């Protein structure tokens, strides 16, 4: 009567952000070229990720999450989603978590880093 099932799913999107390189970012010194060579093309220059489309579907953000209409902001995002479920006949439990590592770099008019912010959200999935 008590048939049990367990579902585990993992979802990864985007390139991982190198934490070693983040330590090397120095406001006023590091250039935009260096940022792009270390981390690759910024995602706000590319099409929105599937994750961002889901966020829009859920109405979490009404606009594309990485849509910055400025050339002086570089954004990088790595998304990870974990799904786990326990399926019994009488009771089911489903849990989904989506977390992001996010780096945003603001560049001044001389193409040098003005300030930056980084948050490693995927650590919360451990």
């Amino acid at each position, binding site marked *: *009567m008590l048939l049990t099932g367990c579902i585990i799913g993992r979802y990864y999107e985007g390139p991982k952000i190198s934490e070693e390189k983040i330590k090397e970012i120095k406001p006023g010194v590091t250039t935009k070229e260096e940022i792009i060579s270390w981390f690759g093309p910024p995602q706000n220059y590319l099409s929105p990720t599937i994750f961002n489309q889901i966020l829009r579907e859920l109405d979490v953000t009404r*606009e594309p999450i990485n849509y910055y209409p400025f050339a002086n902001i570089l*954004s990088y995002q790595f998304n990870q989603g974990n799904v786990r479920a326990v399926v019994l*006949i009488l*009771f*089911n439990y489903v849990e989904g978590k989506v977390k992001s590592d996010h780096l945003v770099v603001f560049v001044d008019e001389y193409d040098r880093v003005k300030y930056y912010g980084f948050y490693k959200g995927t650590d919360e999935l451990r």
Partner: protein
Amino acid sequence: MGSTKERMSCVRAFVSIALFMTLTWGCTIGRVYIGSEIQNDPKEKIQLGLTTKSDILSIFGPPDRITSQFDGDIFVYTYFRKNSTQLAIREPYITNTTFFTYTRIQENKDHLVILFDKDGVVKNYGYQRGTQDLTTF
């Protein structure tokens, strides 16, 4: 040999178990978490006219959205949660009928919106913690 009373109670128990197996009830609980909780209490960390954009980035990390206005930028931080609960009573063997369904879906967000002036200093902010209103069932 048992008495008639004992036999009747055995039959009742058997019928109860058979009825319970026929009328299956099921409960489904779902949880969705998107984004990260807002790390610090804005009331403690933000001082109007003093805290800079750089401070905000180091305290709260990168925002989920940046909007530009004619008099400065806006940073938006969002943490989304959804709790769902469903209870259903159905007879899946003969009639395949659902007699009763109760569904409760709760969605809520924590929102932090920070307004900067043209020099990148916090002009004002708004904070709403909706996820604490979510109930377990």
